[in-house]
């Protein structure tokens, strides 16, 4: 099983200056993804605190996104890969793409990209893996979004994307602005959260069971996840033991 050491896990023990939107990470100590070591509280330990730190999504996504027919628009937060030079004499570097340039509507770009997908299909080969679209809902948000899990390579990337998607609905809900990760480790603190404003990411797997996201290695998660729901912490409490049991059964 691949290790799910995610940058920022080091912060876990040190305490974060800023609370970050993150999905639960596996393993308490130096676990190599051995899920049986998970304890119930771990699932909540690094729960999402939608404190709306907007992170940039990996730049390479733009190319992948345009190949996907259903992708709705280019991620708006991508950095310019090419530094914007003001020297008119300097020719632009080849092959580097800039967000929103040339100014062809994302809608049209997606249509044309799906053409080239079809082209490769007819040729009998598919260059990329099929997309893994799942619906994402968040309690309290008026509508759903869809994400292609294949676009991301880790829980952290996914969580950053989700945070951006739902940021406007959480602005009023982050009462606990000053919390750091250390607080989450404390189980009694967890109880206090039960009526609070915290959210946890959960997903429905192929069996139809709802689990906490973050328990399993990323690839396994992508394969088994059918939909995502960002639940209020109060409602997700019952999930942890089930998740733990299921993980125990798996390992």
């Amino acid at each position, binding site marked *: 099983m691949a290790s799910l050491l995610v940058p920022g896990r080091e912060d876990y023990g040190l305490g974060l200056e800023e609370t970050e939107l993150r999905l639960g990470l596996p393993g308490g100590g130096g676990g190599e993804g051995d899920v049986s070591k998970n304890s119930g509280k771990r699932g909540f330990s690094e729960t999402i605190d939608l404190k*709306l*730190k*907007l*992170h*940039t999504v990996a730049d390479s996504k733009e190319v992948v996104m345009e190949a996907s*027919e*259903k992708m*709705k*628009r*280019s*991620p*708006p*937060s991508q*950095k*310019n890969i090419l530094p*914007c030079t*003001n020297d*008119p004499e*300097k*020719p*632009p570097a*080849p*092959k*580097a*793409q*800039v*967000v*929103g*340039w*040339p*100014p*062809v*509507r*994302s*809608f*049209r*770009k997606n*249509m*044309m990209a799906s*053409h080239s997908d*079809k082209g490769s299909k*007819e040729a009998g080969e598919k260059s990329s893996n099929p997309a893994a679209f799942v*619906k994402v809902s968040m309690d309290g948000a*008026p*509508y*759903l*979004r*869809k994400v292609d899990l294949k676009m991301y390579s880790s829980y952290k990337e996914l969580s950053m994307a989700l945070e*951006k*998607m*739902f*940021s*406007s609905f959480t*602005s009023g809900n982050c009462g606990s602005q000053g919390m750091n990760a250390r607080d989450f480790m404390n189980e009694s603190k967890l109880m206090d959260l039960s009526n609070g404003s915290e959210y946890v990411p959960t997903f429905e797997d192929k069996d139809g069971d709802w689990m906490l996201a973050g328990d399993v290695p990323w690839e396994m998660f992508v394969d088994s996840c059918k939909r995502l729901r960002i639940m209020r912490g109060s409602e997700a409490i019952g999930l942890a033991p089930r998740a733990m049991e299921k993980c125990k059964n798996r390992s």
Partner: protein
Amino acid sequence: MSEDEDGGGGSAKSRGGGGAPPPFSDQVLEIVLENVLQFLSSRRDRNAASLVCRSWYRAEAQTRRELFIGNCYAVSPRRATERFRRIRAVVLKGKPRFADFGLVPINWGAHFHPWVSAMAAAYPWLEKLCLKRMSLTDGDLSLLAHSFPNFKELSLICCEGFSTAGLAVIAEKCRHLRVLDLIEDYLEDDEDEMVDWISRFPETTTCLESLGFDCVGSAVNFEALEALVTRSPALRRLRVNHHVSVDQLHRLMARAPQLTHLGTGSFGSAAAAIPQGGNNVVDLMSTFAGSKSLVCLSGFRDVAPQYLPAIHPVCANLTSLNFSYAEVSAEELIPVIRHCHNLQIFWVLDTVRDEGLQAVAATCKDLRELRVFPLDPTEDSEGSVSDVGLIAISEGCRKLRSILYFCQQMTNMAVVTMSKNCQDLVVFRLCIMGRRRPDHVTGEPMDEGFGAIVMNCKKLRRLAVSGLLTDKAFAYIGKYGKLVRTLSVAFAGNTDLALTYVLEGCTKLQKLEIRDSPFGDSALLAGLHHYYNMRFLWMSSCKLSVRGCMEVAQRLPHLVVEVIRERDEDDDHEAVEKLYMYRSLAGPRNDAPPFVEIL
């Protein structure tokens, strides 16, 4: 039910404008005025009339039937509905145009909900709604469907947030629906939960005149669609999505020979193989021959070239042809286009190359609007059309009014030629895809070309520039572009002077969108005298600072100055990455997401 929901007597109470009711004689005059003003349709004329005096203001407010809101944040729904009490049609626009290119983060705003809520209370007789770049949910559509018993026309352009579930409610509840046009919307669609909305239209004869769903990603129930078309005798415009195969299209056309506008869906077969050799094409051709009223064709999403000849019978009647999703070569285009003498609007991909454009120029003498899109919309793509094609078009299509042209290389000479040949140009949008690319023959900036456009095309209202441009180009624009209302600038200019020229010179400027150009605070401040006359200003990746933007916000209290920050404020708290500012009677909006700071 009477037209006039306010009734007769006691109408003085219901008049907008507030204050004590005017004396009786004035009321009579107002009624007379209303009877006259109801013939005034242009909103600009109405705006002018409303400024004459209070009486005219009231009369105009009572007689306005169409409400146009160019920026949904410029006025609150309540204020709009309080002033105009008898609106039947609303046009509402939301996000800035650069949102189409991914420059505006998701969840920025432009929510339809507060508007539909206000209108549900104020305009029970609402008939038409057109939304552009708004964010709306299925719940909003449901509220719409339930609130307006006489609702007739819904157009959604570049909107997002709703799904087929919302469409189903519209289909089911809006029994007088004549128009349902979905144009380049992003539906929140889910394969598992796709709703068969086509089946929800009334089972009786419908009054549908226009149905367009080419942007809906999921397949519709074809049998239901066919039945719907059959029982919609008034149907004139039908645009299906790419899931409709050419065989299915055939059947639909047979049911609706009276169509004037057709969006063909895929125009290819689902199965790659073509059964029965050429017979299919012959059958299809005779079906087209039977559609004698067709004037507008679009779609062609997966066009199989062997089917193209099927449209020959209608080409001579076509005024509008949209091949912009069809990878058609010059050889495939020429047999089609040479029949299209009446064509006025042509959208095409650059796969037709300069040669294809030459064929267009040779035949389409009446062409008014041309759009040439890139198959490969990247900076370093091959580039299949060039200055050659542009010159050909300018020589053949003298009546051209609007052009959008994507290319990789261009010359000043070609642009100057077009400026002289096409004096009717109102819209000139040239996109040289490689950033800051000079004239590929002379190596010079593209200043002279764009200068000629503003100088020679006296009717020019919309301009988009590209290529290597110095401040000089903007001096031209400021000096000659006196009618320009919309200007788009990207990767251009050297100094603040460029923007200053524009802000000082273009007296009719209403919409200005700029990206990646070296304009800073002093240029921004050069426009203070003009910003209240504009709908909006967008500047991204320029050289603005918070201080400059703050000064604008302070000096112009009725301007909403939004700073959009997407990344962590690691280095520069002073720099403003994205600025969007607009005049507003409503003040700072209360639905701004956390990444928007209103100064």
